[in-house]
C-alpha cells in the first residue's frame, strides 16, 4: 500500500480507493536523447487526455532530518518559474478547461493534468518549464511551509488513523526509509529551509529521472513530437548513486501503541512479504494477491464474514497488499473492535482466520471467485484514463517494464490453492508481525488544559 499525499484531499482519497490493474495492450514507448521516457496509451472514448510526469524521487530518497522535503518541493513546484509566475500554472490549465494536481508517495513525485485532448501541448510546455526553471523564492517557501504543517495537522496530528499508520510504518521498518512518513516529521518541517528544497530539486528533477505517461484521445507520434519539442532541449544530468536499501530481517513480533482521542479501539497489522520483481518468474506476489482476495475480496469474504457478520467481534476489517513498489512490500490488515469487545479479542480473531487458512488451505470455488473478480477488474479499470496512466507510472517507477503487466492476468490464473496456503503459512506468522494498536482517549482528557476556560463547557457563545 502506498501512502500518497496529494495537493488536494479528495483526490488522495480517490486514489487510495481505486484498486486493480490496467490493461497492458496498445501502449507506445519512446525515449528522448536526454533520457526522458515517454509512454502513450491511446483511449479515444472522449476528447480528453491525461498527462502524468513521474519523477523517481519520493520520501524513501530522503535522509534523517530532512523528512518531508520531497512533498514540500511538490508544493513549491506550483510557486512559479522564471517565465511563469506563481499561480499561473494552475490558471492556464484551468483556462484551457483542464484540471491539474500532484502527489508524493514513498517512491515518486507525480505531476498530472487532465484536459481537452487538443490542449495537451499546454500541459507539456508548462511541465517542461518547471522541470528546470523553478524560482524557489524564500518568502514563498516560508508561506508554503506553513500550509504543509497545516496539512500534517489535518491528516496526522488530529487523525487517530493517521497517527496509527505512521506508528506502524515507523515500527515495521527499522532500517529502510519507508519508516519515514511521506509528509515528514513535524520537527523536520519546522527546521526545513529553502536551500533544502533547492538541493532536492537540483538532485532529482532531470529528464533522465522521469517518465511521462500520456493516456487519452491522442496519436502516439504526435505526443512524441510534442515531448521532443518541449523537453528535448533540457540536458540530462548525472544522478546521485542510489544505494541498495534493505530492511533488516525481523526476528520477532513488534508492538506499538498510540493513545489518541477516539472511541473504538483499532489496530493495523503488517508482515514483510515479497514484492514483484520478475513478473514472468515470480509466483509468491501473485499468490499473495489472491490471498488478499480470499481474505477481503468481497462483502462476505473470510475476514468480514468471520469477524463482522458471524463473530461480531469487529465492526470493520480489511486486508491489503500492493506488490509493486521500489522498496520492501508489506501485507497489511486492519481491524476495529466492536463495542463491548476488546481489541485483543478482535486481533486474535483476525489472526485465527489467517492461521486457519494457513492450516486448512482454500477451496477451489473460493479461488475461482477471486480470479473472476480480478479478471472483471481488469476490464473495469479501463473506464478511467487517470487510473490507466497511474498503473503504467507505478510499474515504471518500481523498475518494472509496464508491458509486463500483460503477463499478470495469466500468472494470476495459474495460482493454485496450495500456493495461497503456502504464502499464508510462510509469511503471515507472529515472528514477522508488527501490531500497531490505537487505545482511545476520551476527548475531554486530551491534552491537559493549561488554564481553566469558563466558556469551554458552554455550547453557544460569540467569538470576537
Amino acid at each position: 500500500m502506498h501512502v500518497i499525499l496529494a495537493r488536494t484531499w479528495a483526490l488522495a482519497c480517490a486514489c487510495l480507493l481505486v484498486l486493480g490493474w490496467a490493461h497492458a495492450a496498445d501502449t507506445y514507448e519512446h525515449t528522448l536523447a536526454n533520457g526522458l521516457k515517454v509512454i502513450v496509451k491511446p483511449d479515444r472514448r472522449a476528447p480528453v487526455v491525461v498527462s502524468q510526469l513521474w519523477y523517481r524521487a519520493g520520501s524513501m530518497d530522503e535522509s534523517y532530518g530532512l523528512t518531508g522535503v520531497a512533498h514540500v518541493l511538490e508544493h513549491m513546484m506550483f510557486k512559479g518559474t522564471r517565465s511563469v509566475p506563481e499561480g499561473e500554472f494552475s490558471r492556464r490549465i484551468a483556462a484551457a478547461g483542464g484540471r491539474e494536481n500532484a502527489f508524493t508517495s514513498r517512491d515518486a513525485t507525480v505531476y498530472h493534468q487532465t484536459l481537452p485532448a487538443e490542449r495537451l501541448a499546454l500541459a507539456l510546455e508548462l511541465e517542461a518549464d518547471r522541470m528546470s526553471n523553478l524560482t524557489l523564492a524564500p518568502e514563498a517557501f516560508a508561506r508554503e511551509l506553513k500550509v504543509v504543517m497545516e496539512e500534517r495537522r489535518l491528516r496526522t496530528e488530529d487523525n487517530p488513523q493517521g497517527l496509527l499508520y505512521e506508528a506502524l510504518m515507523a515500527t515495521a521498518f527499522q532500517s529502510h526509509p519507508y519508516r519515514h512518513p511521506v509528509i515528514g516529521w513535524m520537527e523536520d518541517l519546522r527546521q526545513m529551509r529553502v536551500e533544502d528544497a533547492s538541493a532536492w530539486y537540483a538532485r532529482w528533477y532531470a529528464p533522465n529521472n522521469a517518465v511521462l505517461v500520456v493516456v487519452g484521445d491522442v496519436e502516439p507520434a504526435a505526443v512524441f513530437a510534442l515531448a521532443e519539442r518541449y523537453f528535448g532541449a533540457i540536458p540530462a544530468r548525472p544522478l546521485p548513486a542510489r544505494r541498495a536499501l534493505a530492511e533488516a530481517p525481523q526476528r520477532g513480533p513488534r508492538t506499538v501503541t498510540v493513545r489518541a482521542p477516539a472511541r473504538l479501539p483499532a489496530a493495523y497489522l503488517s508482515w514483510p512479504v515479497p514484492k514483484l520483481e520478475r513478473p514472468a518468474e515470480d509466483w509468491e506476489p501473485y499468490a499473495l494477491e489472491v490471498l488478499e482476495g480470499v481474505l477481503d475480496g468481497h462483502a462476505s469474504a473470510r475476514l468480514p464474514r468471520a469477524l463482522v457478520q458471524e463473530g461480531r467481534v469487529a465492526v470493520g476489517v480489511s486486508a491489503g497488499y500492493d506488490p509493486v513498489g521500489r522498496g520492501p512490500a508489506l501485507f497489511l490488515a486492519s481491524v476495529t473492535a466492536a463495542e463491548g469487545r476488546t481489541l485483543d479479542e478482535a486481533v486474535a480473531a483476525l489472526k485465527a482466520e489467517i492461521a486457519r487458512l494457513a492450516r486448512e488451505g482454500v477451496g477451489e470455488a473460493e479461488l475461482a471467485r477471486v480470479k473472476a473478480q480480478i479478471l472483471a477488474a481488469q476490464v473495469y479499470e479501463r473506464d478511467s484514463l487517470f487510473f490507466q496512466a497511474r498503473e503504467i507510472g507505478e510499474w515504471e517507477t518500481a523498475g518494472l517494464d509496464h508491458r509486463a503487466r500483460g503477463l499478470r492476468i495469466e500468472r494470476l490464473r495459474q495460482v493454485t490453492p496450495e500456493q495461497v496456503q503456502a504464502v499464508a503459512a510462510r509469511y503471515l506468522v507472529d515472528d514477522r508481525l508488527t501490531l500497531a494498536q490505537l487505545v482511545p482517549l476520551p476527548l475531554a482528557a486530551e491534552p491537559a488544559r493549561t488554564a481553566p476556560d469558563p466558556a469551554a463547557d458552554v455550547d453557544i457563545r460569540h467569538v470576537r
Partner: protein
Amino acid sequence: MLTYAMYARRLVLLFLLACLPTAWAGPVIQHWLSASGARVYFVQARELPMLDVSVTFAAGSARDVADKSGLARMTQQLMSLGAGAWSEQALAEALADVGAILGKQFDADRAVFTLRTLSEPRAREQALAVLQAVLAQPHFDPAILQREQARAVAGLKEAATRPSYLGEKALQAAMYGDHPYAMDEAGEIETIERLTRDDLLDFHRRHYTARNAVVALVGDVERTEAERIAEALTRALPPGEAAPPLPPVRVGAAGPVRVIPHPASQSHLFLGLPAIARDDAEFFPLVVGNYVLGGGGFDARILKEVRVRRGLAYSAYSTLAPLTRPGPFVIGLQTRREATEEALAAVHELLAAYLRDGPTEDELAQAKNYLVGSFPLRLDSNRKILDHIGMMGFYALPLDWLTRYPERVAAVTQQDVVRAFRARIRPEALHTVIVGGATAP
C-alpha cells in the same frame, strides 16, 4: 434592438462555443418510460465489454421522521444483506462469482443502487438477478438488523470524536431547523437503536416503488436489451405513487456563532445556509459565481487568500450542493487554533467584498473558460456518464440539460452573479460553527 452590452455578451458566448471541441456534444441519451412506470435513461457505449446500471429512489434521509431518523439509510443498507433466494453470504458470493460490484449512494434526496458487471450474458444476467431481488425482495433479517444497528451506533460514537463530523452535523441542524434536511443522514444513536424490522418493511413498501424509480444504464448492450433490463428490475416493485413533495425551506436569521469545544490542534470552521435547488432559476449564476469565490481551487479567492497569501490552511473552499429543495452553500476551512479568528475575519471580508462587487471581468472569464472547456472531462468515462444521467433523471431535468450546459455557463454575466449571490448568500442568514476554539484547549 441589440444594445452594446447584449452584443458583447453574444460575442463572448459565440467565442466560448467556438472553443468547444467541435462535433463532441457528449453522449446520446435515450429515454423512455418502462411498462412498470419507472423512468429509464440509457447511453450505449460499446468500447468496453461492461455495463453500469443505477436505480434511484426518492428514499433519502429527507423521507425520515425525527423520532426514527436513520430509517431511510438503514433500509437501504439492509436491502443488500440478504434478498430473494440469496442469504447475505450467498448474495455477496453470487456477485463476486461473476466479478460484479454492487454499490450504494445515499443523501438527503436519493437512495441509489449501482451495479457494475461484465456485459457478457452469463455474468450480466446473474448480477442483474441479484439486483432485482435486492430491490424487490429484501429479507430484512432481524439478526442482521440488530448487528447493523450496533455497527451504525458504533460508527456514530466514533464520528462524534471527529471535528469535521461534529461541525458538519451542527451546521446542518442550524441551517435547516425543523425541515427534514436538518436530520443526520446516518440518524441518531437513540433513533437507530429503536428501529424495528416492521419500520424497515414499511419504509421499503412505501418508497421503493416503480413510479418512484429512475433506472440509468450505460454500456455494451442493445436498446432492446436495455428496455428488457429496466423492465425486469422494476417489474416486481409495487407500482406505488411518485413521492410527495418535500416542504419548502425557510431561510431565517442565523443565530450566534456556535463553538463546539474539541482538543484538536486545528479548529474547523463551517459557514453555511440553504442556497441552491436543482431546478433553480439562479443555478448557473450561482455555479459560475461560486467558482470565483471558493469552488475553483487555486483560481478561487478563498484558497488564494487563506492558503496562498496567508498560509493559514491546507484546505479552504466554498461548495454548492443542489438538492430538490434548496441545498447548502458551505464555506469550510481548518486552521491551527491560534489562527481561528484571523481566518474567520478573512472569510467575512472576502464574502463581503464579493457580495458588494462580484467577480472581476477576468475572474468571470476564467470561470467560464474552465466550466465550458472542461465539459468533456465531466463525461470521459462510463461511470461519470451514469452518474450524470441518473441525476438528470431523478431531478427530471430536460434531456438537453448536459448539451446546453456550456452555453448556459457562457451566458452568465457579472450582474447575474451579483444578483444571485446577493439574493441567496445573505450574511445575516449565514450560520457559523467552529469546532475547537481560538485558544489552546
